[in-house]
């Protein structure tokens, strides 16, 4: 597995406020990494660092240029700030995921539109191409934004707390979809629900100002506290303390 991105001894934040301190992390092809940690611990900042919106104050972020550049990153932000009543149709929202490949005066070609339509179908949103977000359910809205992240065919997919607004009927489908996507791209998923995602991810990054990498999906409360990652480990089923990999 070759490294796509290497983060080395990076300190970063906003203005004089340091959020991440001296962190190092390597993202490889095929990774499916859960990014966990308390609120305000720096999960979103880590994703923005990888995207290049937050610049390192110290250290460096290195993109393996033969495999990836910043434009090959798909991003699903926390979308609470978006106005659902904005007069923009689903197809145009998905198309906005191609803007990193365009000049500011760029036009969408026929091939771009076909790509968007394909993604819309793949995500089960056919028939809603001309709808605005206000006509969709929460889960459908999320799929539209996932479509925006995927339409550029990224090498890395960054998801910022997607479990926040998934409807329960779509949740399972959503994670199955992610597993399928993982065969084509590396995935980093910020989440506070370690229990749910541990059956899908392959590794964890615990972020609380510092970053600790945990190379397996099994993680215990003891390990979390050793990583200084104070989150409540939500356990599911009959497993009381440790979340183990699913056995078929």
């Amino acid at each position, binding site marked *: 597995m070759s490294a796509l991105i290497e983060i080395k001894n990076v300190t970063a934040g906003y203005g004089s406020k340091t959020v991440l301190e001296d962190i190092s992390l390597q993202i490889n092809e095929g990774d499916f990494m859960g990014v966990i940690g308390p609120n305000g611990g720096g999960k979103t900042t880590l994703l923005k660092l990888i995207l290049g919106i937050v610049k390192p104050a110290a250290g460096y972020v290195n993109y393996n240029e033969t495999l990836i550049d910043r434009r090959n990153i798909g991003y699903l932000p926390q979308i609470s700030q978006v106005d659902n009543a904005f007069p*923009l149709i689903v197809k145009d929202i998905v198309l*906005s995921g191609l803007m990193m490949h365009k000049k500011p005066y760029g036009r969408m070609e026929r091939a771009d539109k076909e790509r968007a339509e394909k993604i819309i179908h793949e995500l089960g949103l056919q028939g809603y191409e001309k709808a605005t977000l206000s006509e969709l359910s929460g889960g459908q809205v999320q799929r539209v934004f996932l479509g925006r992240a995927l339409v550029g065919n990224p090498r890395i997919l960054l998801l910022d707390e997607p479990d926040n607004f998934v409807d329960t009927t779509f949740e399972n489908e959503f994670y199955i979809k992610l597993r399928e996507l993982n065969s084509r791209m590396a995935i980093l998923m910020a989440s506070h629900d370690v229990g749910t995602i541990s059956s899908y991810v392959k590794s964890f990054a615990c972020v609380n100002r510092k970053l600790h990498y945990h190379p397996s999906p099994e993680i215990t409360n003891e390990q979390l506290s050793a990583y200084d990652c104070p989150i409540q480990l939500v356990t599911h089923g009959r497993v009381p303390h440790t979340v183990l990999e699913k056995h078929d």
Partner: protein
Amino acid sequence: MTDMENTVFQYDFILKGLLGCLFASITAGIAGTYIVSRRLVFLSGGITHASFGGIGIGYYAGFNPVAGAAVFGILSALGIEYLAIRQKLREDSAIGILWALGMATGIIFIFLTPGYAPNLMSFLFGSILTVTPADLISLGILSVVLVTYFSVFYRTILYISFDENYARTYSSSVNIFKYFTTALMALTIVLNIRMAGVVLVLSLLTIPPNIAMLFTRNYASIMRLSVLWAFAGSLLGYVMAWFAGIPAGAAIIFTLVVIWIVARIITSIIIKIKKRVKNEL
């Protein structure tokens, strides 16, 4: 008045009205769609009234009041955008203060100006009769600039207004586009004050997109329909004003509101009929 003078006067009146309505519709339709979809109506009200300060100072100091209004309008718009980007502002309070400050400044300076300010009423309520060739030319240029800007950078402007934070992930010029678009909005408001007046200009921008949104949800179509509805409404209002001898600005806004009400009733009846047909099937 001789026949010839009368003809020239009428010709001038018709030409001014036609061009004025056309340019006002193009600028107000495009800017209005942007303002309504980004929910900047209150901010635009602030800009409008702040620019009245510039009109007052223009009168007092003896330069073109529209130029004064333009400077005030653009500066206050950029100031609010700057503070909002920096997130150092409770926006609604600041806009309220700016709104009042502009009106107060305008009134103080107009009172300090020796003699009577003949065009004061036209600035408050608009008057196509006082529109000068220079006003028409600047509105015409602004129309060309807006149409060009919005067609060339359509996707960029649209996506920044929809989801600014996402736009920042692929573009480093989000703020430049925001400032530039905001400045154009302020300029549109100020140049249309001659047509509809400080009190009414905001409706010229906001009613047409609201009529358009009854028929479509697609941004580009809303923009085109807004221009068309604004043109239809302003021409109709202008003709009405001519025959009834009432101020054109008020007649235009009144016509637009009536169109909006009628369109609303018609579209809601259509939706009800569609539902009933669907249920019966």
